[in-house]
């Protein structure tokens, strides 16, 4: 396996840079993943050989660009086992995907006194769009809370799910708690109450195999930049029959079939949602990222990340005064580890780690209501990727201890 790590590391030149004179140890993969050379080369190559606008020209170059752009749609569909490419809408990001559902589909199905059910662990991007929808429609936004072990409280979910629930929207993997929620079960229960199910897969798509048909979800959103792709490209999967009835929310070139001075007729889905020149280079990069992930293999990625977390978590727990959020049992905990050191503010800890070349997040992680529930202002968060090594885990724990010592000595 050591060999595989070394080969992989070569694909990510940034991993061999230095930060504050120390070798970079990048542990903020939940914020954004690093981008392998293969993705960057594919993008450059596209611009240097086939760059043209899509869906517009009848000439050779435009046709090449359009084919490349549409082929990635097939690739994305296959990657999450969507029924067809038409169920894949390109967006900027998970955030835009979720906003599109809330604005277009939400306004279509949610009425006064209906309920929208989300969870207290949601990222702001899967929270504010629903909060706004609830305001617009005078519907009620409800939150499923946590168990004592800081995982999703399924009993509370069953309790809050009812005939008024129109939409259930939930993260597949929390970006703070290190838990993955039982989406298949949630979807089954929600569908029994005739609610639609939206899944925020931002934190899961690069870490486990996703099968939207097996999960039987209505919508699923994710971002290219968290799965080795470039920024600026996201995906919204929607069941074709739902995408079909949803109105577009941006208007302009490419998304229309016909326009007169007084009216316009839309294209069919997914194109009706893609107004204007899309992020063509971003789509090409996303395709390359999927190729890369598939070449490495999602099962290998899952297994490797499991090995890493099983090395990390027990060691981290040993550090005196260190609190880990989310489930304490390593088997339930995935590669996202939020924690705090007693009496130390997470920013100060992160600055200390930064001095040692270790890059972790400190803050509310765009999950302020969750912070309130956990009773903290902020946390430190380390998040792994398959390109991290076991040595990285040891180095990280050592760095945490050093930082703790530094502040313990000073204060």
């Amino acid at each position: 396996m050591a060999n595989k790590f070394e080969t992989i590391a070569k694909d990510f030149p940034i991993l061999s840079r230095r930060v504050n004179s120390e070798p970079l140890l990048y542990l903020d993969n939940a914020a954004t993943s690093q981008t392998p050379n293969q993705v960057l080369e594919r993008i450059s190559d596209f611009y240097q050989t086939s760059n043209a606008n899509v869906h517009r020209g009848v000439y050779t170059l435009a046709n090449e660009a359009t084919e490349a752009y549409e082929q990635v749609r097939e690739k994305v569909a296959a990657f999450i086992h969507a029924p067809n490419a038409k169920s894949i809408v390109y967006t900027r990001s998970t955030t835009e995907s979720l906003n599109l559902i809330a604005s277009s589909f939400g306004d279509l199905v949610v009425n006064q006194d209906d309920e929208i059910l989300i969870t207290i662990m949601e990222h702001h991007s899967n929270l504010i769009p629903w909060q706004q929808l609830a305001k617009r429609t005078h519907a009620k936004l409800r939150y499923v809370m946590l168990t004592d072990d800081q995982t999703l409280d399924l009993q509370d979910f069953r309790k809050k799910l009812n005939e008024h629930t129109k939409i259930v929207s939930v993260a597949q993997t929390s970006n703070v708690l290190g838990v993955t929620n039982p989406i298949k079960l949630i979807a089954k229960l929600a569908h029994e109450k005739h609610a639609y199910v939206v899944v925020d897969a931002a934190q899961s798509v690069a870490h486990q195999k996703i099968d939207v048909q097996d999960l039987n979800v209505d919508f699923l959103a994710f971002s290219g930049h968290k799965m080795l792709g470039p920024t600026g490209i996201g995906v919204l999967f929607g069941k074709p029959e739902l995408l079909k009835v949803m109105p577009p929310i941006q208007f302009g070139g490419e998304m229309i079939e016909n326009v007169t001075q007084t009216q316009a007729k839309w294209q069919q889905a997914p194109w009706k949602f893609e107004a204007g020149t899309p992020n063509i280079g971003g789509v090409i990069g996303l395709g390359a990222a999927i190729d890369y992930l598939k070449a490495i293999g999602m099962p290998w990625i899952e297994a490797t990340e499991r090995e890493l977390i099983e090395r990390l978590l027990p060691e981290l727990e040993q550090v005196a005064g260190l609190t880990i959020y989310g489930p304490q049992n390593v088997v339930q905990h995935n590669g996202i580890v939020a924690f705090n050191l007693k009496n130390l503010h997470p920013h100060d800890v992160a600055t200390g780690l930064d001095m040692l070349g270790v890059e972790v997040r400190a803050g509310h992680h765009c999950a302020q209501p969750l912070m309130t529930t956990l009773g903290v202002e902020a946390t430190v968060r380390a998040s792994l990727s398959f390109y991290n090594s076991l040595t990285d885990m040891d180095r990280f724990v050592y760095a945490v201890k050093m930082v703790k010592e530094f502040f313990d000595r000073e204060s």
Partner: protein
Amino acid sequence: MSLNKLNQLYRAVVLDHASHPHHKNDLADATQSIELHNISCGDDIRVFVKITTNKVEKISFTGNGCTISQASASMMTDALTGVPITKALEECDAFFQLTMGQTVPTTTQNDLGDAAILGSLAAFPARIKCATLAWHAAKTALGGEENEYNNFE
């Protein structure tokens, strides 16, 4: 200069169909009609069909477009007039295969008539949509494809 390659596409029969299209008219007694647009250029084709006892009794078209789309529409009406619906749907699919450079049985090619020569389109991928528009409209009108376009807003 490689304009010679154009000869493959713009053969006499294509140009002839384009300038004197067959069945280019409304059908007052149509049982179904479908309009489709070629989004990249605005070409539009409306196909009319009159079905009796599971047969395409009449099929015609109206609309604007380039040489390829007009010729292809004209050839389509020739090929599908008087043909049983199931067979007409098969011919549509065969035509799609042909334009994508796939081979189809000689008998099917014969059924397609003049349209078979648009197999040469495979060398002009950017123009395939021009040729297939009328056939998609026909297939939709015959119930073989869903019309996924939304209505005027």
